[in-house]
């Protein structure tokens, strides 16, 4: 495999939910940089009618806040928002051509985590995903941060909607500084948290789901955060504070580290983090420019696949590699992977979002799921996967392995893995052999990395 192809496969595996034949053809026809540029402009990507078909399938997706509230709370469809957002998310991650956009929606959903654990949080999160996360996922960081601070989902989840001058609630203030912006070692103190909480008093929710600044509940004293004095002015104090913090060098470093961690390596090289943080600062937190700097970096292009796929990446990548045709079996099976693997969308129980390091996901429970699912898919999807259907054309063992490698492992199978496939499949009939080998490849160690 040429060096250019190797780089391309890694790129596609990094910024989509998994390389397959169609996506490799696309990437090869465009080249490394053009493929990135194409993916960075999701609004200009023809989605083949996916979003409009989703709207047709799930009427909730086009309801306004009031109509959705009626649907959930008055008509007592208490799990409707959770179910529909989950279905839409799973389908988009596997099938949307706007793959990098979906990856960034997932990234920010982890970063600004809100847990769906009640009818109310499901309702708020559903609206936030549609009206905030998806439109802003590739925009400017400060826009995301400002919108998130006013998002009913976040105001409710971290209790800021209850925070008043008489008794500020510190929950949002702390997690915003620790998790959303500066990072835990970003240079703030316990006093900075208290002062930040005072700044955000009165930031609350107006029913059914809009932001409201309750001036009567706001603390109109002077506050000092990170040495900066905020004179009492009401709502604009919080806006100015977020602006200052979004531009802070600790924030650039924190976001850069997390992006490098998501796309490249659990423990990214300091030089790479510096470079990405610099791109973030120089562009005033422009996420597209920051991502481009990360993906174009020579060390990233040369880096081996160092990331253990998370359960959703493992499952989506396998279904994409099989080119599974969407139906109920595919969707419920993907859900089962995430349920057994412990990564259903928007259900991580703490404000820090799903972990993004191998130490957490490399568990017996997680690998049991991978083994079982790999075997199940090749059984259950035998008729729904063009890869498995077309493979019947090949009778010789070597041809079959070549074919499966091209479809399921675009980055190539190791010689040792190939020898093992041969050894274990020799006594099987040609048809049974092919299905069995496909399952072994999807469940194998090599396939777990991206």
């Amino acid at each position, binding site marked *: 495999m040429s060096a250019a192809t190797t780089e391309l496969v890694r790129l596609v595996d990094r910024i989509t939910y998994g390389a397959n034949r169609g996506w490799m053809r696309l990437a090869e026809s465009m080249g490394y940089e053009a493929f990135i540029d194409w993916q960075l402009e999701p609004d200009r990507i023809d*989605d083949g009618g996916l979003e409009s078909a989703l709207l047709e399938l799930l009427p909730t997706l086009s309801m306004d806040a009031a109509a959705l509230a009626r649907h959930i709370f008055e008509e007592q469809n208490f799990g409707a928002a959770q179910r529909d957002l989950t279905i839409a998310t799973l389908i988009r991650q596997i099938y949307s051509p706007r793959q990098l956009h979906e990856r960034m929606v997932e990234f920010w959903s982890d970063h600004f985590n809100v847990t769906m654990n009640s009818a109310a949080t499901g309702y708020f999160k559903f609206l936030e995903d549609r009206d905030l996360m998806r439109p802003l996922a590739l925009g400017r960081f400060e826009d995301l941060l400002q919108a998130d601070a006013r998002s009913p989902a976040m105001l409710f989840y971290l209790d800021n909607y209850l925070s008043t001058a008489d008794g500020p609630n510190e929950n949002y203030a702390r997690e915003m500084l620790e998790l959303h912006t500066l990072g835990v070692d970003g240079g703030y103190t316990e006093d900075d948290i208290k002062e930040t909480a005072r700044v955000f008093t009165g930031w609350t929710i107006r029913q059914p789901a809009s932001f409201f600044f309750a001036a009567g509940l706001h603390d109109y004293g002077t506050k000092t955060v990170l040495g900066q004095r905020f004179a009492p002015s009401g709502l604009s104090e919080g806006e100015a504070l977020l602006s200052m913090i979004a531009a802070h060098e600790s924030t650039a470093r924190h976001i850069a580290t997390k992006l490098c961690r998501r796309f490249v390596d659990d423990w990214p090289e300091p030089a790479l983090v510096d470079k990405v943080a610099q791109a973030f600062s120089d562009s005033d937190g422009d996420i597209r420019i920051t991502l481009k700097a990360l993906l174009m970096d020579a060390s990233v292009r040369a880096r081996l696949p160092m990331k253990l796929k998370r359960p959703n990446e493992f499952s989506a990548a396998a279904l994409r590699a099989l080119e599974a045709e969407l139906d109920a079996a595919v969707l419920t099976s993907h859900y089962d992977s995430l349920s*057994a693997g412990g990564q259903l969308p928007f259900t991580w129980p703490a404000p820090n979002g799903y972990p993004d390091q191998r130490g957490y996901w490399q*568990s017996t429970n997680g690998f049991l799921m991978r083994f079982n699912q790999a075997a199940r898919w090749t059984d259950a999807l035998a008729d729904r996967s063009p890869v498995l259907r077309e493979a019947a054309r090949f009778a010789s063992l070597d041809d079959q392995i070549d074919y499966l490698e091209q479809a399921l492992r675009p980055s190539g199978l190791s010689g040792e893995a190939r020898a*093992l496939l041969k050894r274990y499949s020799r006594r*099987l009939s040609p048809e049974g052999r092919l299905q069995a080998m496909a399952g072994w490849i999807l469940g194998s160690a090599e396939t777990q990395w991206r």
Partner: protein
Amino acid sequence: MNRRELLKWMAISGAAASAPGWVWAMDASEGSHPERLIVLFLRGGADGLSLCAPLGDSAYFDRRPALAIREADGLPLDAFFALHPSAGSLKTLYDAQELGVVHAAGLFTAERSHFEAQAVMEQGIDSLDAAPGEGWLGRYLASLNGGTPLQAVALDKAVPLSMAGLGSALALGAIDDFSLALDARTRLALADLYRLDPLLDPTAQAVFDAAGALGPVQALPIGADYPPSPLGTALADAARLIKSGSGLKAAAINTGGWDTHESQNDEIAGLIAGLGDALLAFRNDLGEEWARTTVVVQTEFGRRVAENASAGTDHGHGGVMFLAGGTVNGGQVHGDWPGLHDSALSDGQDLTVTTDYRQVFAELLATRFGVTDFAPIFNGWQPGPWQGLFLPAGEAAALPALGAPARLAVPTEAWTPPASLDLGGLSLDRLAAVRSIRSESVR
């Protein structure tokens, strides 16, 4: 289950053609009345002042006008402390001398971030400045010889940091769901494919070992009336691991929801009832095994002494620990009470820590597990004098019968994701016809 029964079960089930080495190790462990430790971590920072309220401290009522447990409602433990009104099952255990409380416990160095405080505690240190990257429990277990594949388990989706560093620690999720649906050839092929990858290989082999070893555990029925919650399931699974003679030495269980920044009294009643009911069911389920089992309940920090305006509490410092088991010197509140008056508070606002959380684990390891050298386990730290938290090994309290709790109907509007996706008659045909899904060019 003894070795002969296990071999018979393996022969019937075809679990293995020949018994693996650890089957022979079971005899040894069964002969020596092994001790087990269950570490139950309350994630989110549980409010020690509600779990075990200092009713004798007048400052408590001054600082908690809305949230203080009223004297008429608390379940008194002594002249000073009372358990939360919904802690009936904890009170039952306390009265049977099988539950002890260590108040004002935690990290000496205040850390008010959930994630940092949890990471510090699970690594057995006091601050992150010199973090070893491994868990204290993992370091202790790794120092023991032998052991079965099921000696150290997390009854959760992942192994917690406290067990990190022990390659053989297993994350089992819920035990009834842990089964391998592979034919023999696939199992062998995957095992060989993973030998090519030294990083992932131990985990893959552990999956095969655990799936084989769990058979006899899964064959046991649930032995008591546990609350229908993830915590109930986890403790029921821990009991099955113990009763099946699997060689369990330590289990880690997590339970969340304790980050009560708002409406604390509405939230915490159900959490406390759920904790107590699950522990009492666990005790009744274990029977005589309870005499060699210790549950340590810990949390990353307690909460601010003063309530906030949302009828909740923000992150604080000192917290509470519970010790439950037939091994516990129970029926008393241990630890020095620093007081809640202004001059006694940590940073002028939080309960001061008087007992290092490691002191509790060290005393347990010394008294019941025969550990004498703590430096390797706690990264050089040495414990102070023992506080008499546990009964010496070999002494087991006689087990009275304890009644099961009356079920509290806790109103909740909680939503948890369904076990499987219900498409409710949605037709995906129109979607399946979408061009991008049919993997044609999407440009």
